[in-house]
């Protein structure tokens, strides 16, 4: 086997040194009746070229070159090639969690930079090293709010990504954490503030909203924070489309922000790996889940970075830990870090403006033949279009034309009928938009 650095002679020598006569002697602890005496029923060993051929065939089955109008929690942005060039350095991608700081400063410094940029973008004071993704991050944010407030229930806006909501429900179910939902206003697609105000009780640990929300609508975070804070609940804000932070005001009034960083240079990759991150106020730091990197000094006074505050974590606190998370999404956070660095202060704004402009143009075009919903509040790069034709049928009709249409909302919002969520990023050309707009009625 080509990955194994041993010759037959090496193996024989080692067995002799160990003092056993065959390799199976070393497997003696396994009761004989459970030893596998046959080959596993999996395909034979493949040459590298055969592996490449297999995956090329799979890649071709999916196809490439589509005009992509899907967003809904996974966004099709241009990925500067420097990202993969840099994360492909063995020093990054074949390293473990930076437990030994003296030989892991590369990873540690990059996480420290990531934490800093997430703070800058979200308007929070601290951020962690990453969570699995936006959905589990949102669940952890809610659990964190429960720990912080001593209250036990949570309210989630219906305009939070439906799959995020499903995940939170799974997480919450057995922790004695009742979850209720609050609806949206048909005109704007925003959280129904009046309804929310009524729903919050003394036991409400937090309200979780998303902004831009699942319909692409930008929420009024300040107002929502007010409503929450008046009743002693925390406001958790989930951000699924991180590029929005280039032009949309950060949720500075939030107590906890959970962001999905996929838009920052992470490939769509059929849904993962992505990276979540939790950011919050400094005073809440002892309840944050996941890893944190901090600045310190070595004995000569040189600046260096270490994993810190690990008494929150499972390997120290076990069943009392803030979360069971161990392995996170470090390399994906590094992608996001590089992406944020490439675009930086001016670029994120320019990029967000292009997204905003493309979607605004598209909404206008789509509006000519179909009905654009929720026009009463500003949108970022997504908008909802209601059609006569069933949106699944539209999708099937468009796929062979190399267009991937919007996300049909029926499944999660039956009340919206034939509505679909369309997304335009900097990668959607005017031509693509015009073509699609003509097909959607």
């Amino acid at each position, binding site marked *: 086997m080509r990955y*194994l650095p041993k010759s037959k002679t090496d193996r024989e020598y080692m067995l002799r040194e160990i003092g*056993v006569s065959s*390799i199976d002697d070393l497997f003696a602890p396994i009761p004989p009746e459970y030893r596998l005496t046959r080959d596993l029923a999996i395909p034979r060993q493949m040459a590298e070229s055969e592996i490449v051929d297999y*995956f090329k065939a799979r890649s071709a089955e999916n196809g490439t070159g589509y005009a992509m109008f899907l967003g809904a929690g996974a966004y099709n942005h241009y990925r500067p090639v420097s990202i993969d060039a*840099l994360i492909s350095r063995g020093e990054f991608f074949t390293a473990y969690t930076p437990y030994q700081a*003296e030989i892991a400063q590369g990873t540690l410094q*990059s996480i420290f930079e990531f934490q800093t940029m997430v703070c800058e973008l979200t308007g929070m004071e601290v951020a962690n090293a990453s969570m699995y993704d936006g959905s589990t991050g949102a669940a952890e944010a809610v659990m964190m709010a429960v720990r912080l407030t001593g209250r036990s229930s949570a309210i989630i806006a219906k305009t939070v990504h439906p799959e995020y909501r499903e995940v939170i429900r799974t997480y919450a179910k057995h922790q004695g954490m009742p979850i209720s939902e609050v609806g949206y206003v048909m005109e704007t697609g925003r959280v129904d503030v009046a309804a929310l105000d009524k729903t919050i009780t003394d036991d409400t640990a937090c309200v979780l909203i998303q902004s831009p929300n699942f319909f692409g609508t930008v929420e009024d975070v300040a107002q929502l924070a007010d409503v929450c804070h008046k009743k002693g609940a925390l406001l958790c804000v989930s951000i699924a489309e991180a590029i929005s932070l280039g032009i*949309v005001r950060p949720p500075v009034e939030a107590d906890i922000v959970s962001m999905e960083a996929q838009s920052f240079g992470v490939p769509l*990759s059929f849904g993962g790996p992505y990276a979540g991150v939790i950011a919050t106020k400094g005073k809440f730091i002892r309840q944050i889940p996941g890893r944190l990197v901090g600045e310190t000094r070595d004995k000569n006074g040189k600046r260096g970075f270490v994993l810190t505050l690990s008494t929150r974590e499972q390997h120290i606190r076990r069943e009392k830990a803030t979360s069971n998370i161990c392995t996170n999404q470090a390399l994906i956070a590094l992608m996001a870090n590089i992406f944020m660095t490439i675009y930086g202060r001016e670029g994120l704004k320019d990029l967000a403006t292009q997204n905003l402009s493309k979607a605004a143009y598209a909404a206008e075009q789509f509006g000519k033949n179909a009905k654009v919903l929720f026009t009463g509040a500003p949108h970022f790069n997504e908008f909802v279009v209601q059609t006569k034709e069933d949106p699944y049928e539209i999708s099937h009709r468009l*796929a062979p034309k190399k267009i991937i249409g919007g996300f049909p909302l029926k499944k999660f919002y039956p009340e919206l009928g034939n509505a679909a969520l369309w997304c335009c990023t900097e990668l959607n050309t005017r031509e693509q938009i015009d073509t699609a707009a003509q097909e959607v009625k």
Partner: protein
Amino acid sequence: MVDNSKIKKATTHISQNEGLIFEKSSPGKKAYKLPPLDVPEVDAAKFLGASVRKDLGNMPEVSEIEIIRHFTRISTWNYAVDHGMYPLGSCTMKYNARVNETVARLEGIAGAHPYQPEMISQGCMRILKDLSDQLIEICGMDAITLQPAAGAHGELTGILLMRAYLESKGNPRKKVLIPDSAHGTNPATAAMCGYSVENLKSNAAGMVDLAALEAQMNEDVAGLMLTNPSTIGVFDSQIAKIAEILHAKGGLLYMDGANMNALVAKTRPGDFGVDVMHLNLHKTFSTPHGGGGPGSGPVAVKKMLEPFLPTPLVVEEAGGRLRFEYNRPQSIGRVRMFYGNVGMHVRALAYIMANGPDGLRMTTEDAVLNANYIRKKLDGIYDLPYRTPSMHEVVFSDRLQAKNGIKTGDIAKRLIDYGFHPYTVSFPMIVHGALMIEPTESESLEELDAFIDAMKSVAQEAEENPEIILTAPHNTRISRLDETGAARKPILRWKPQAAKTAA
């Protein structure tokens, strides 16, 4: 001057300094250019009103070459599997084949949107299906979910499955038994699933104390989370009996599969009584650790647990078409959006294909061979608290060195000078001052011998010159860092001298 004359594996060499990226920022530098906008530009302030952002605070402004140099330079400060042996016990730091990286980046795979129509997702779905089938066969189980994002996430999923199953039988029960040797994620997970954790003692052999298990097992106990081989690298030969005790009282056997590298193709958990288990694809199946992640933690189960698996599952229709099955009324629900860390699934499948049945078997054999070779060579030089046979890893203690004031953490730091990444320090907790060494199959005899020499040399230094160990490392850019200070006054982000703030 530090005496480095016995160090054979490494030397010191010039290494670039590099500040934080923010310290290189200057207004007007750019590393990006966008194509001209082909639609009318929206006036954001007008369009967004009060929701418009004014500026981006201290986000950096640098050029492309500065970025390439920044990350290249800081990368050179890292140790990595590509540099040499990385014997972190329990972490299975094996070789990450380049072909896995290549195939994961193919455009039709890396560019696939999770919601694109199934008719143009068949390639990705086939990958999920093939991997599922092969992992099921490897584990000897009946069904699997690929949704969990890492080992701990797999644990969460697995325990929720147990809970849902028991609930469907009428009672989710209250407790989960966890051996004292278990990884911290096990108790943390049980707690997240609403169970209280009950500690289970290990016996003198480092295995489950059967009497204790028998005593502690009752109708309040949902099951046992067992790591097998355990965190001291010992295969619990009583495994069938353990399963029997649990099953007799209606409990389930959960196996933490972090140590599957000791078992693949040699035995199958499903055959020896395991009901539910997770795999760490980023350990056993070689998806890269990436400085801390991403991972992937599929959960494989026996038939009776299948109805409870998270939605969706990929199912094959007559005719070969694949579709996502969402209609699973007993499902515990989603544990993650979409379908899991698909990029990691691609890599794991590529790894399995590269090995085939014979390659996987030889991989496991070499992993166990390497651990036993190290054990043999270092036994006596370091204290071996459990003499039970080792599988893929061996756990020593610092007892012999502690006489001279040298702890496992100190030996680790000195090992860095010798050109190695240290073993896992102070885990598992049942071994005081543990040195947990997992070489994996990826180490050559040359590298193993170099490691053994280095360990012997440090042991000798512990006798002759303990100071050199206590002040190690000496050959790195920075010396030992003040971790206590870092935790006492946490500095968790960079701030400019005169702080600007984002709005």
